[in-house]
């Protein structure tokens, strides 16, 4: 240590210690008294088959937090997102949520893209009597799973199915309905809804063609579907199966003779299928970027998202943005992060973010908002790589929701 004086060494050590202390110090020392950040714990499957959608969710949450902080934060405090990767596993989601609660001391918990993650986090929240914000399709609104502090800005499988069935009943002359779906639990939730609405609306329900899950090739099932001669073919599948089915339906010219509706679809799959592959096919969507023509707030969101990702967000990005905003804006309004008070305030509260007015139904916490039906464009009508659809119909949230009394809640 020749050449360094004792004075210089002590000075340097003090600076280093101060910097280290600053980093490990309690937040109020970092931010100043009264500015301790609010920690929004957010879990997404950032690795695994749905990683791109999860990345959209995460970025949408970050944009929501930026927007909230730009408006002064919550109770004068900035919001900070604390993110974890669920690795597309319910068990990992639970473990990391516990870590967020115990080590990071988050104020609010949110997350999930898949059913197992949602079930695990909802169960954890229920056992600990804490708030849980669900980003994905809301499937915990039954008597056994309902938790008074769980909220969502996404629809239920019932709403997705009902919206598509209502569109078919009101717009398609032919009344023979059929379903082609992957054979696992989520698509199975759609069947009783189609049966119910077919009965209510005088449609002829011809049944289901089940394909193994996961499937790369649906071509073996297409002749079976064509043999039924449906007027409307509902399709329920996810991820790579969705992309495969879009390509193969086009290849076999199914959409020329039959009205095809994917009950739930999203932009990344249309992009992956290729330009024009969605042509003449319909899909139900919670949201898509093209709504910017109707809603200025969507245009703002699209700008921010595109600036960072060079593409538009999946619909699940919208759900994550809206859930984050509605929760934290409500906390700001009532000046409290108490989970019971927050939950009470969210019930029945009306919001307007990336689409028309939405609200949370008090009886079951169903998210009530427009659900959109889009129609695919041919390749020569697409303005850019993302311009796959036109908006052709929308179903109101109330019309598509299961009546409260039926759930026994």
């Amino acid at each position, binding site marked *: 240590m020749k050449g360094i004086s004792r004075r210089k060494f002590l000075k340097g050590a003090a600076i280093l210690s101060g910097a280290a202390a600053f980093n490990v110090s309690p937040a109020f020392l970092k931010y100043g008294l009264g500015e301790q950040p609010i920690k929004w714990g957010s879990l997404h499957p950032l690795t695994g*088959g749905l*990683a*791109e*959608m999860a*990345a959209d969710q995460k970025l949408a949450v970050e944009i929501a937090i930026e927007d909230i902080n730009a408006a002064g934060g919550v109770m004068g405090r900035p919001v900070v997102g604390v993110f974890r990767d669920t690795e597309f596993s319910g068990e990992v989601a639970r473990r990391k949520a516990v870590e967020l609660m115990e080590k990071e001391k988050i104020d609010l918990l949110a997350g999930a893209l898949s059913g197992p993650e949602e079930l695990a986090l909802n169960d954890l929240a229920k056992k600990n009597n804490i708030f849980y914000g669900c980003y994905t399709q809301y499937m915990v609104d039954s008597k056994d799973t309902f938790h008074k502090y769980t909220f969502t800005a996404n629809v239920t499988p019932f709403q997705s199915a009902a919206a598509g069935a209502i569109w078919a009943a009101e717009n398609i002359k032919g009344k023979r309905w059929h379903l082609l779906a992957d*054979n696992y639990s989520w698509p199975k939730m759609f069947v009783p809804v189609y049966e119910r609405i077919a009965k209510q609306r005088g449609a002829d329900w011809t049944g289901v063609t*089940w*394909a*193994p*899950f*996961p499937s*790369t*090739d649906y*071509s*073996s*099932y297409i*002749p*079976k579907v064509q*043999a039924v001669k449906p007027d409307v073919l509902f399709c329920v599948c996810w991820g*790579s*199966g969705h*992309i*495969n089915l879009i*390509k*193969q339906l086009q*290849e*076999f*010219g199914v959409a020329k003779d039959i009205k095809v509706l994917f009950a739930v679809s999203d932009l*990344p*799959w249309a*992009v*992956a*299928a*290729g*330009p024009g*592959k969605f042509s003449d096919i319909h899909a139900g969507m919670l949201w898509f970027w093209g709504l910017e023509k109707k809603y200025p707030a969507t245009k703002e969101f699209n700008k921010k998202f595109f600036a960072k990702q060079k593409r538009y967000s999946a619909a699940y990005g919208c759900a994550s943005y809206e859930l984050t905003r509605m929760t934290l804006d409500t906390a700001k309004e009532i000046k409290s992060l108490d989970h019971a008070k927050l939950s009470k305030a969210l019930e029945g509260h009306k919001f307007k973010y990336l689409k028309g007015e939405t609200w949370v139904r008090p009886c079951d916490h169903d998210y009530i908002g427009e659900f959109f039906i889009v129609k695919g464009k041919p390749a020569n009508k697409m303005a850019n790589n993302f311009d796959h659809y036109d908006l052709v119909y929308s179903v109101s949230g109330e019309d598509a929701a299961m009546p409260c009394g039926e759930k026994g809640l």
Partner: protein
Amino acid sequence: MEAIIEFFGRLAEIPANTWITQVYLGLVNGSVLILLALGLTIIFGLMGIVNFAHGTFYMTGAYLGWLTLRLTGNFWIALIVAPILTGLLGAGIELTMLRRVYNKRESVYLGILITFGLSFLGPDVMRFFFGKTGLPYVTPALLDGTAFSIAATNFSRYRLFLIGSAFSLILLMWLLLKKTNLGLIIRAGISNSRMVEVLGIEIRNVWTATFGLGTALAALAGVLVGPIFAVQPTMGDMIIIQSFIVVIIGGLGSLIGAVISALIVGQVLTLFPLLPHLQQLADVVIYLLMAFVLLVRPRGLFGEEGVGE
């Protein structure tokens, strides 16, 4: 007895064009499996390596095909370039990784571990460079649409092309193996690689070329399925399982076994959804078939005794 009569009765009700369509689609599935299984069985037969990364090379071929298509706008160039590039990559991996473990104890297991590791690495590399969801392929205009129809079954140009490509490859492979010196060495190596070495032939170079050839075949399958299947990082996961089943049913190291077995499995996968009361077994029927073949004939339909033990 009544159930059997009812079963056959319902089978008879299925229209003829549905059967025709399913058999045709089964031939398409079988053709893809032929390309994958040929590569897998050549590599195993000559080198004794169970290539768990075969699905990754299939996926790599699809991605390199997409990239070539994007750069050149020409599907035919992609069909040639992507397998060549993937074959070179495969040869490089054999030279730099697999060759290091041949003389070690437990080389078989080390080879498995290396290829298993590659099967995880490959998709993540593709996600990093190409994104996580998938890449769009466009069917070449020449092959778009229906070629002809028989009894209301539409035979798409592209799928007929796929079948034709697979059978052309079988012919080329037969010519390579039967009519060339390299083929002679490969066949001799499959039979007894030690003897080939003793005769002064540098068997390791043959291994490198064979591994490259096997991975090139997988890549070709990847490019061919691009217009009809989703091209994404996990596209190799399911088909590699089916390919292994084909190779096991056909017999490890047997080329004719790989071809016949691929055609059988392709038909089973496509016809089972038609069968009354048996559709639920469509998910698992090929595993049941493999189990049955192993019980009845453990070395596979065309396998030789001692190979793979």
